[in-house]
């Protein structure tokens, strides 16, 4: 069968791999060049919501609104989920719960306590991080796939609870959620109903901050511990890595990013209902992370952009979006499990046939399979 697989793979049309030379070029680029590229990207992000770009990107809807939600918010969520799934290798199927906690924190504090967005943001981040710890502390000792189901259950518990309680507004949700207070008098800091661009800039700033944070973490002791846990948890434990503590960290950091995204989302949406936070959203974000290349930030951002943008651009296929995502997930796992823009390290791990949870079947099928596809 492995031979069959190899011949099948040989028969498939060879996709020209343009990304690998590009990533090699990037790896060799000196520091100043990289800084220049970063600066260009940031400038690009700020001129993005112009009408001429919008008329091509989303002819049927308001481009700057789409840039904020779903694109910006999905990217933020995907970066957060990537910490959990891509870096620490923990499959979280209920990530939307933290997004919901952020959203409801914004709604409740904003409507009932009349707090300001800028005050709620840190509080909501702490709330969702705490929720991450509360969920993680008992469950992170579980095996990887059990964890996936428990997190799925947690996501549903949060949504159903919001649906059933009266102080969260039940099925009708919360409204009107106040906009953030404007800063100064410049147009791009006036948050209101008429213009979504200020919200877009806000999300861009948040994304940049989060990227810097996550990148720093990745190269720290914490990040190294995460990749050790992802590659082989037992070995990491044996080497003295306190795996439980670092997994909890991954959960808390991922959760706080999700919470921040929820606050932003709620403050722009005026009203939120439990239906804004379905399981489907968790799986879109997971899809973004996996398709883009879990563990690799540019890949994850690209994945989130595609998952958010494609259905808006090709509205005529909107009915088929879930069908296409579902099929793409299966196909991707079969053909290119490392994603569109994989991280080199992750790719090597997957080529070895592990990826956090041990291999499928605990040896079933492996007896006749010595096919190791080293592509590094």
């Amino acid at each position, binding site marked *: *069968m*492995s031979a069959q*697989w190899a011949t099948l793979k040989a028969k498939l049309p060879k996709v020209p791999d343009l990304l690998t030379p590009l990533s090699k070029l990037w790896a060799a680029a000196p520091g100043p060049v990289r800084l220049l590229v970063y600066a260009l990207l940031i400038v690009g992000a700020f001129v993005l919501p112009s009408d001429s770009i919008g008329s091509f990107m989303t002819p049927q809807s308001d481009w700057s609104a789409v840039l904020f939600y779903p694109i910006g918010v999905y990217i933020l969520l995907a970066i957060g989920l990537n910490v959990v799934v891509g870096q620490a*290798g923990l*499959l979280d199927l209920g990530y939307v719960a933290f997004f919901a906690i952020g959203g409801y924190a914004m709604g409740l504090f904003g409507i009932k306590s009349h707090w300001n967005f800028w005050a709620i943001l840190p509080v909501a981040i702490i709330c969702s991080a705490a929720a991450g710890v509360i969920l993680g502390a*008992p*469950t992170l000792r*579980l095996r*990887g*796939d*059990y964890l*996936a*189901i*428990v997190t799925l*259950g*947690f996501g*549903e*518990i949060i949504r*159903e*609870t919001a649906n*059933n309680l009266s102080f969260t507004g039940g099925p009708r949700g919360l409204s009107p959620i106040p906009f953030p207070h404007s800063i100064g008098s410049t147009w791009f800091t006036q948050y209101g109903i008429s213009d979504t661009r200020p919200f877009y800039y806000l999300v861009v700033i948040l994304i940049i901050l989060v990227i810097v944070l996550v990148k720093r973490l990745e190269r720290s002791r914490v990040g190294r511990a995460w990749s050790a846990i992802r590659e082989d948890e037992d070995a990491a434990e044996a080497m003295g890595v306190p795996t439980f503590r670092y997994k909890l960290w991954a959960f808390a950091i991922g959760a706080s990013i999700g919470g921040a995204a929820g606050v932003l989302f709620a403050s722009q949406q005026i009203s939120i209902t439990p239906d804004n936070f379905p*399981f489907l959203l968790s*799986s879109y974000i*997971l899809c973004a992370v*996996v398709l883009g290349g879990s563990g690799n930030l540019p890949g994850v951002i690209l994945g989130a952009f595609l998952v958010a943008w494609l259905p808006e651009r090709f509205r005529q296929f909107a*009915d*088929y979006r*879930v*069908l296409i*995502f*579902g*099929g*793409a*997930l*299966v*196909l*991707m*796992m*079969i053909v290119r*499990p490392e994603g569109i823009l994989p991280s080199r390290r992750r790719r090597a791990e*997957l080529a070895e*046939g*592990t*990826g*956090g*949870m*041990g*291999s*499928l*079947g*605990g*040896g*079933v*099928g*492996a*007896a*006749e*399979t010595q*096919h190791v*596809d080293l592509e590094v």
Partner: protein
Amino acid sequence: MHLHSFVTQFWPSTIDGLTLGSIYALMALGYTLVYGVLRLINFAHSEIFMIGTFASLFTLHALGVKDAESGFALVGVLLLCVAAAMAASGASAVVLERVAYRPLRKRGASRLAALISAIGASFFLQEVFALRYGRDQLGFPRVMTKKVLFHIGSGEVRSDKLLVVAAALVMMVALDRFVNGSRLGRGIRATAQDPDTAVLMGVNIDRIVMVTFLVGGMMAGVAAVLYGTFFELTEYNVGFLLGIKAFTAAVLGGIGNIRGALLGGLTLGLIENYGASIFGAEWKDVIAFTVLVLVLLLRPTGLLGETLTKARA
């Protein structure tokens, strides 16, 4: 909190709990068997169930059933439905394994990759049915008259509820005999216990995996017919919530354990209904998920432990 209604509703809750629990138990078998053999949460098992409900509905349409049947006609209709649903669910489970899991298994891919593939397959199947048959609930014609047979306390034992519980028990016993008594069953147990050694002993693993999916799918098909006669409706995502609960039941009983699936299913059904009578029906799903979290925390091996791997099943 309405402890009083728990007392007054005790018998009705018990009967409903056992009925629902039987359906969970049949579904849980699919999760338990596949997990026992492959260590894979077959996330798309809920869609195998959904396909079964549609097969059952179409059989009823094809037979032109409009009103409640009785006697031999009823038995015939139900048996045809069961046969159709078992065939449809079993076949789609086998196809699912071929398409979504086998390529990964052959490559020795990570279990994370397999689970993601399963989620993708689940969405794909749901959407195929949503696009083809719409997103609205489809009603079943009433096949059997739901008359009250006798009372236990204040609870009414209705004919359809009795059928669900009895049919589930029969299927469970049959499956238990199959896994423990037949040659293929021995292969399943051997593979679950130690796949490498099983290969050396001449077990054809690919065939065993196929049979496991087939049997799990067929059980989901039976569950689908029972669900159809009891709830009399289906829709494209009918399996989602039921699937998670059935998985909870499998974990509760001890995943990989066939008798555990029965115990877990019935226990979960009872807890859910007792909980609903205390806290209100809107908290039913929350209660089920809380049970899942608590079980995994306090006794991750489940009530009876994971024994398919320990050759006892």
